[in-house]
């Protein structure tokens, strides 16, 4: 499985994502700079966490307009599995690949801690190695993770099984405790928690590993 990690100015979880991908899939990902409009064909695209463009204007807003994103959007629409974590999730909503928006946390503070997530969908290519209803522990670290969409959108997401994860206990004010959502095709996932930070016992646990093995297995 060949992957690409997209690097924006201010990305800071790009190395973590690359380490996780290499460790679990066995292949070193390509590190793609945001100005590269013509990157190699890959099986998996990751938009990492961080503060791309300093979170200035609005988290993810400027990155969504970076030259590389035209190609990312095209490939995602063609069905290439595309995964955004934290700032990556914010970028995906800004591009319109995923519905909704991430607002400032309800508590108005940055929050970094392990949180319990409930797996809501175990059919997607990102989540097949989990079991629906399973509780997993994955850390969050964000200031703007308060997921918002209108009721109609939320109903549709729930109806179509596109809520991938919910917070067992809401930490940021997200509508319906939503921590991660899928696109209609199921090949784009955005989530605020960081599975790439939970891949070794010494880091606090391994509940993030199955995210990557799911993708690996789904891609055969």
């Amino acid at each position, binding site marked *: 499985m060949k992957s690409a990690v997209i690097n924006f100015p*201010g990305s800071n979880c790009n190395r*973590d994502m690359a380490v996780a991908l290499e460790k679990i899939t066995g292949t070193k990902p390509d590190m793609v700079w945001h100005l590269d409009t013509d990157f190699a064909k890959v099986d998996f695209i990751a938009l990492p966490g*961080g*503060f791309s463009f*300093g979170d200035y204007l609005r988290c993810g807003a400027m990155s969504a307009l970076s030259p590389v994103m035209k190609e990312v959007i095209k490939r995602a629409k063609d069905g290439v599995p595309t995964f955004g974590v934290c700032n990556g999730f914010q970028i995906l909503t800004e591009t319109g690949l995923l519905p909704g928006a991430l607002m400032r946390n309800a508590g108005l503070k940055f929050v970094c801690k392990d949180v319990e997530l409930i797996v809501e969908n175990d059919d997607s290519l990102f989540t097949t190695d989990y079991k629906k209803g399973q509780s997993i522990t994955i850390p969050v670290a964000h200031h703007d993770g308060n997921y918002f969409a209108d009721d109609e959108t939320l109903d549709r997401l729930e109806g179509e099984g596109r809520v991938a994860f919910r917070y067992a206990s809401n930490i940021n004010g997200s509508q319906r405790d939503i921590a991660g959502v899928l696109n209609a095709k199921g090949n784009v996932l955005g989530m605020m928690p960081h599975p790439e930070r939970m891949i070794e016992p*010494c*880091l606090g646990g391994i509940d993030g590993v199955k995210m990557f093995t799911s993708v690996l297995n789904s891609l055969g």
Partner: protein
Amino acid sequence: MSDNIKITPDMITEHGLNLQEYDRIVGAMGREPNYTELGIYSVMWSEHCSYKSSRFHLKKLPTKAPWVICGPGENAGVIDIGDGQAAIFKMESHNHPSYIEPYQGAATGVGGILRDVFTMGARPIANLNALRFGEPSHPKTRHLLSGVVEGIGGYGNCVGVPTIGGETNFDASYNGNILVNAMTVGLADANNIFYCAAAGIGNSVVYVGSKTGRDGIHGATMASAEFTDDSEEKRPTVQVGDPFTEKLLIEACLELMATDVIVAIQDMGAAGLTSSAVEMASKGGVGFELDLDMVPQREANMQGWEMMLSESQERMLMVIQPGREHIAQTIFEKWDLDFAIIGHITDTGHLTLKQHGKIIGDMPINSLVDDAPEYERPYVSTPLRDTIEASDIAAPVDLEQTVLDMIGGPHLCSRRWIYEQYDYMVMGDTVQRPGGDAGVVRVHGTNKGLAMTTDVTPRYCFAGPIEGGRQAVAETWRNITAVGAKPLAITNCLNFGNPERPEIMGQFVDCLQGMSEACIALDYPIVSGNVSLYNETNGTGVHPTPAIGGVGIMADIDKMATIGFKKAGESIVLIGETIGHLGASLYQKQILGEDAGAPPPVDLLAERKNGDFVRGYIESGTVKTCHDLSDGGLIAALSDMIISGSMGATVDIEGACPLHGLLFGEDQARYLIAVDTATAEKIVTDAEAAGVEANIIGICGGDELNVNEGAIELSVAKLRDAHESWMPNFMAAAV
């Protein structure tokens, strides 16, 4: 315009210089300085840049060990951590700006210390801090704490360096002068470390990073004076940080450092372009000619002196090999950063400044550095206090409530409210998170760990500066030992009041004396540091606060110890001797509202012996649970272990002094460990042979803390609730 300004005595005073110092400038230059030159001398000769009151005493500190690659004098200290790698670290204060403007003051404090570390070629891998605020009841405390924490998080989170440790104290002496000390640890290849000494006549002097604006002008001078009621009017001297640019600067510098085009590099910190240029030229024994028209400017019509004194953030100065400037330029342009050749190296030994085609300043470099005044200020030592026996200190009225008040009060309560606002996991190597004895970061790509901590007990430093100095160093050494790492070296941030007062200078000299003794006894040299004097408001100094930042190494992170109890039925062993010392203790301060008696004596030989003994068991994989004893004594440490492990303990404590002395006494060189009973018995036997005091005091398990068959019976839930709730309630203005 500045050329025509006549220097007046008022102007000299406003620049923070006295008239004798001015005469010294005239002597050094052989003429009267112009306004630009006066500004430059004033910052270079400020306390902050010249260390004029402290230098004489700093020279006496122990700074050497076989593993020290670079001691004090560069941007940060460098130690060898094996396998061709080096740890580079330093701690620095940003006290005055943080009091005036807490968010930006703290944020730029983090930015500045990060630059000191990556300037030397290291990728920053961890941030820590040491914070002191006024008493919780002071009307500004909540505002300042909130702003400082948000500023530290706002900057550190954005640059993507984990904030893995720190300490927070509250005391009335900081009511009008908080202390914000930030520390960064970086990782570099030992054979690719960058220094600031400029070389090569004719080589280009290159400016990179953000543009220069009018912010922070005379910040170094502000940091070298006492606060008065109108200090808040100095808000414009506080710089504004941009962590996004800093992140770009880190990546661009590290990318450039992987090539071989840099001759010398220096960040622009306090006193900005002035101090970076002067330091580079001075260390290299060369001159600099700068054309200020070439400096990237954020604002129009900036005067030369404004550019030279601006403390705009996220800027660096470099000397690049001739003909290879384009390599650097390409990298900085990729990262959208300004790049400008602003001058060249000369053989004149002067700092020559040009603007609009005219020379606006011309000063001998050595006079700016070597001719700076050095004061051997008069000092008087703090009178020695008598030792008070525990039996002469009142016992608590309600023992259980006192335990809850202490672990659930401002001094010992959980700092979760603070550290959860910091990303302590980014970079994917944090193997011991905040809340333990020391933060531990895995050395990327290996199984080694770097342990780090910050500590000092200002209460002790005030009660007995020599003992307090010893204790500050010893406690960081103990913190690092308690996670199973070998302590290697320290950085420090020496926060004191006005050195012109002999009793303050006495605190300074004596704290340094104590620190030196501990460093020598523990083989734990000082490799970098910072001095912050004049921490006073309207004539009242802060408690002497020599904050120590310690770094240690462990060979195998799988052997690391943590504080939480892990396995019911394990025996709890107390290592070290318990006398029940309550003088200058937290119990005395918080519960009795008193501050009397000598601080606990620090027996450095016992410290070393006990620490080496405990570390041996952790390194061998025998002991996985360990916590050092400090503020609040045995009962505070036990509570931490219970809360962290969600497991109770039953202990029996006896001794020659009253129970409250045994529980709350702050005798030094002590640790609690938990191991299976057979091993515990062997440890006690081994300890006897090694001359270490060790006693089995109980077992862990169950869901309550039970001391001496019911003298204290508190559920784990109750302990946790007390411990966790104080700070969130306080910050929500609910207490």
